[in-house]
């Protein structure tokens, strides 16, 4: 029997399979490219641009058809088919996307009337009222909503913020969801703030803002001016970074960057040696010759 007929032993693998933690998708930071701040003005501009593009396409189709027709006539061939304008396809489902609409609600008009130029935008979408005010005058707007007899929003139900790294002139939007218990109405106030700007704290008007603003500071790093207790609330005091920013990976920074499965023994050894070194003990075994 020759050697060639014997089955060849498989090559020994180079080592145990090691998961590449650094390349795992949860560690990658994919920054968003768009700035999804709902706004009537942006929506109207988009609709107008889309309509213009559609019209230009149609005109080009017509012009192409004329050219092709003239060419076919000159060559004595059959005339080409005239173009058909594409109709947007109608989906047969129970979805009706809520688009931003002109503000008709009395509360929004009242806010605009009183605050004047400090109101940047008002609109309605999905049955919700949104009022965007200048970032410096948020406290004034909140006070108006709380104290004005026609508005009378008694409760700050929720306060939250969103990070928009792709935006140029701001970095965060902070939203205040107000509820009027007596009038059964909800209103959203919104400000757009750049990095480092400290909006006025709402605690003076609505005490419930206390923890919500602490949470925003903890999660997104927006500090609020005149807040009674601007400390972290969910993360430990010495936590690095602000987890809900878009440039923060899902798994986080910190001790998790050590790939435990790969280097558990090595890490424990390093820690032991460090501790021993502090205590002046030599743990290292002399190497056998």
């Amino acid at each position: 029997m020759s050697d060639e007929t014997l089955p060849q032993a498989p090559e020994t693998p180079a080592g145990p399979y090691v998961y590449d933690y650094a390349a795992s998708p949860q560690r990658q930071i994919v920054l968003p490219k768009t700035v999804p701040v709902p706004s009537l003005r942006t929506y109207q501009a988009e609709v107008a641009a889309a309509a213009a593009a559609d019209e230009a396409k149609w005109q080009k189709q017509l012009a192409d058809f004329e050219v092709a027709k003239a060419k076919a006539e000159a060559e004595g061939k059959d005339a080409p088919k005239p173009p058909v304008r594409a109709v947007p396809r109608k989906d047969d489902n129970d979805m009706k996307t809520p688009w931003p609409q002109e503000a008709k609600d009395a509360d929004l008009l009242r806010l605009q009337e009183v605050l004047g130029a400090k109101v940047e935008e008002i609109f309605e979408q999905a049955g919700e009222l949104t009022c965007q005010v200048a970032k410096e005058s948020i406290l004034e707007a909140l006070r108006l909503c709380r104290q004005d007899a026609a508005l009378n929003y008694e409760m700050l139900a929720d306060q939250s913020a969103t990070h928009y790294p792709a935006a140029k002139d701001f970095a965060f939007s902070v939203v205040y969801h107000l509820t009027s218990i007596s009038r059964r109405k909800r209103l959203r106030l919104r400000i757009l703030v750049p990095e480092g700007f400290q909006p006025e704290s709402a605690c003076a008007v609505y005490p419930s803002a206390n923890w919500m603003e602490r949470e925003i500071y903890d999660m997104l790093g927006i500090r609020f001016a005149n807040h009674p207790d601007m400390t972290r609330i969910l993360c430990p005091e010495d936590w690095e970074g602000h987890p809900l920013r878009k440039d923060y990976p899902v798994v986080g920074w910190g001790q998790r960057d050590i790939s435990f499965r790969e280097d558990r023994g090595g890490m424990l050894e390093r820690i032991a040696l460090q501790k021993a070194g502090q205590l002046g003990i030599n743990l290292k075994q002399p190497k056998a010759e």
Partner: protein
Amino acid sequence: MFKNEEMEINLGPQHPSTHGVLRVKLRLDGETITHCRPMIGYLHRGVEKICENQSFFQGQVWTDRMDYCSAVANNLGWAEANEKLFGITVPRRAQYIRTMLNEFNRLASHLIWLATHALDIGAMTVFLYAFREREDILDMNEAFCGSRLTTTAFRIGGLREDLPPGFEKMVQKFLAKFETCLEEYENLLSENRIWKKRTVGVAKLSAEDAIGLGVTGPVLRAAGVPYDIRKAFPYAAYAEMDFEVPTRTEADTYARYLVRMAEMRQSARIIQQCMDGMPEGPVMAKLPKILKAEVNEVYHATEAPKGEIGYYLVGEKGSGNPYRFHVRAPGFINLQALPKMAEGALIADIVAAIGTLDIVLGEIDR
């Protein structure tokens, strides 16, 4: 002679009466609390961050795990917030089933509140009684969606499946005995001298303070404010239901107990109405396979057993996952009122105050 100084102690984070891992820093003058500071975050898992990196559908399993005692109520708020974001109309039958399951969940959550709150204050028997009835509700959860606690009950646009055969019989059997069960609990507690001594006038929170601090749910209603989102901003099938919003004006722990007991009776009424008026038809809306959002932001609040649970979602054009997913957890906001309720009281009363707020740390820390 006697030293007169304040003592600082930690209640929790490993303390049975803090319902999880809540730590409360207390400063005491004798037995009186002079300063109280709740410290939270021990259960922080980053639910919002995780949900922002998953598709719209996948967020639901995380809402189960926020307030694990009222998973169905969290699912309902989540599903309706998404439906608002996309503009989906849910079939009427699905709305009715959702309403019914949500009320069952309210019963389960209130029962577990009653059990643990009474246990904290020293009434052992109610604990066993309440868990007995809660078991039946969990069995119904299991019959409907195969899971008892973390239900993942709904889908965006309706339900995954219709009610299982024999479900109606289970419901009727439960409702037939539930009224007597409630009377049993009330016989044990309502006129119990020890219970009244531990609850009447304890942990008061006036209506003005409660509204200012954003407190919602039974705690607010026990202060005399008839604010119930099921009535104020009706969702699901609540607009068609006939029920009352029980309120009290005493604003103490005993009033909150009475409000929650009355609420359980109303929930049973709603369940009966759902079963009687259950419409026929599909349980799922017609939807595309993949949901792609448009630029939109919604805040949708529903009445969870603990209070107002709100979901704030921001959609990005053409994206399959939410750009921002924020939860307004009722426990988080309600816990803010703890210093107001506890300062000036005796240290034993803080246990009653924590119990009456009905907090679940999984939701507070998210």
